[in-house]
């Protein structure tokens, strides 16, 4: 099991002012890292400061990291189908630590097998996610949405 405390990866320690601070990682007992690697590169190329928790995380890892770096957005990945279980009540956890306004996106293959798209989106919106990218291989549109959402001052 991953140690509960924040992994001490170099980028983690001090957030750079002005850059959009994003916490990202793969949730559950999920070790799919390829998309995680690609998303980090893409976010960094579009000027974000990325705090990557990499794979096999629990919800509290995301919350702790978001608090620590005062994140403006959290990108949760779920590829192996465990997302439906581990993402439940995510927004509530953030509210409990005063981070209720953080932008919260989820993407990958977020449930097991084929389920109606509308049902999957409703499920994760119910968990408090702002946007859901189920079975969407291209990360490009999500980054555009991110900057649109940030521009609308949805977050401080």
């Amino acid at each position, binding site marked *: 099991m991953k140690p509960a405390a924040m992994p001490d990866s170099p980028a983690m320690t001090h957030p750079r002012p002005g850059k959009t601070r994003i916490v990202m990682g793969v949730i559950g*007992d999920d070790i*799919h*890292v*390829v998309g995680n690697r*690609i998303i980090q590169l893409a976010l960094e190329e579009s000027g974000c400061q990325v705090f990557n928790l*990499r794979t096999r995380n629990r919800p509290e890892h995301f919350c702790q990291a978001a608090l620590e770096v005062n994140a403006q957005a959290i990108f949760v990945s779920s590829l192996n189908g*465990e997302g439906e279980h581990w993402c439940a009540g995510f927004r509530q956890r953030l509210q409990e630590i005063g981070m209720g306004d953080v932008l919260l996106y989820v993407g990958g*293959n977020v449930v097991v097998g084929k389920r109606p798209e509308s049902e999957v989106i409703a499920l994760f919106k119910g968990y408090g996610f702002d946007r859901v990218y189920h079975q969407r*291989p291209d990360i490009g549109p999500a980054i555009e949405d991110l900057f649109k959402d940030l521009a609308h001052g949805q977050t401080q």
Partner: protein
Amino acid sequence: MARPSDKARLRHTDRQREQVLAHPLARGLCPDEVGRFLAEVPQRRFPSVAYAQRGRLPLIQPRGGVPLFDAQLALTKALSDAGADFIPLTIDSCTRHNQYDTAMQLLRRSEEEGHSYLNGYPLVCHGHELTRQLYAGLDKPVSLRHGTPDARLLVELAIGSGIAEIEGGGLCYCLPYSEGFPLDRALLYWQYVDRICALYSTPERPIHRESFGPLSATLVPPAMAIVIEIIEALLAAEQGVLSFAVSFGQTGSFTQDVATACVLRRLVREALDAHGFQAMQVHLVYHQWMGQFPMQRERAAALIAGSALIAGVIGADKIVVKTVDEALGVPSAEVNAEAVDTVRYVLRTFAAPAMIDSSSIAAEAALLASEAGSILEAIYGLSGDMFWESVYRAFQLGWLDLPFSPHADNANRLLTMRDANHSIRIVDPGAVPISPADAASERRLLSGRVDEASTTYRQILADIMLMV
């Protein structure tokens, strides 16, 4: 110098075995009872028998694992009826990380809410007595498919369920499948698994071991896959395993697939014989494209058909099949059975010519053989008592380096890219001990690529999304 040898064979496993079988979910499994049970199941339940009776065509094995027993029974029947030669039991990811409580919880939710919360069959939760009934009357081998660094309990229960093929290994089920499980511990746990397989084996009914060659399924240079497959064959041979399969994942290049198959076959046989393991039988397994699949149904079907044809051309002993829903999610029984039918159809109708060659295939094979040879020789040369220690040392030195591995200790210095023939080339070997001449050949073969300079994420993505 710590060459592979049967001196490394675990002499007494009883104490460790007691510990493993003391787990409540082992439900008092008794090795002797299992031994008697294995002696009574149909002989064709043993892969060595199925392989020996194989005709001209590769044997076909789909993937498949669902949480509930009834659904798994239905899936098993559907796959067998569709012509599968090996029946899979794919294990869920919680069980793979020994999270048996989470697995039990998600099994219950799957039952109550009528849809799956697990991406596979939680065998440790179901136990071996119930799982045996999945295969009552089946006369085909069953293969345990998972990704478990510590598979000791899982494998005891799997063999107890009458499963006679165990996929995995200390390297191939640690580096691509964990965020940081200590490799030395994984190597030792898999020595235990190999030893248990050997203890349950008889000459006519050997428990079969298969290594997972695709690894991270993403831009893995074939030389690295070949080395890891040979290492795992040697480690299993040290423990007395007599029936083994090496495997590799479709590279994305027809030329490189043919070269990899020929080099892997030759070098694994040479390595085993060189270390006195002539008795071990080795087969070659080919995994259909293990990377990102196209969403478009017709393209996915074409990818499955094309790769089936390559399996025929390389004369693979077994082909592990993908489905048209790969990019979407765990497939339904129908879609999975359909994939088996399509692959069987292609293998039958496109009876490919054996032993094809070409100048580009011969050149690729020579390069891969030289690279794999250099890495193996370097590892043999490391000082130490046990071969597995040299393997662990090689990983720490970055001599074994797996692109796109989630493992925290992976060196990540080995960089790869595709050349104009879509073959995976080494841009920078990092610490991997291939010869300077071979490293130069790799870069020369890349010159064909126009945009080799740009390493933006788009360009890496293009190599990953080759088949989309």
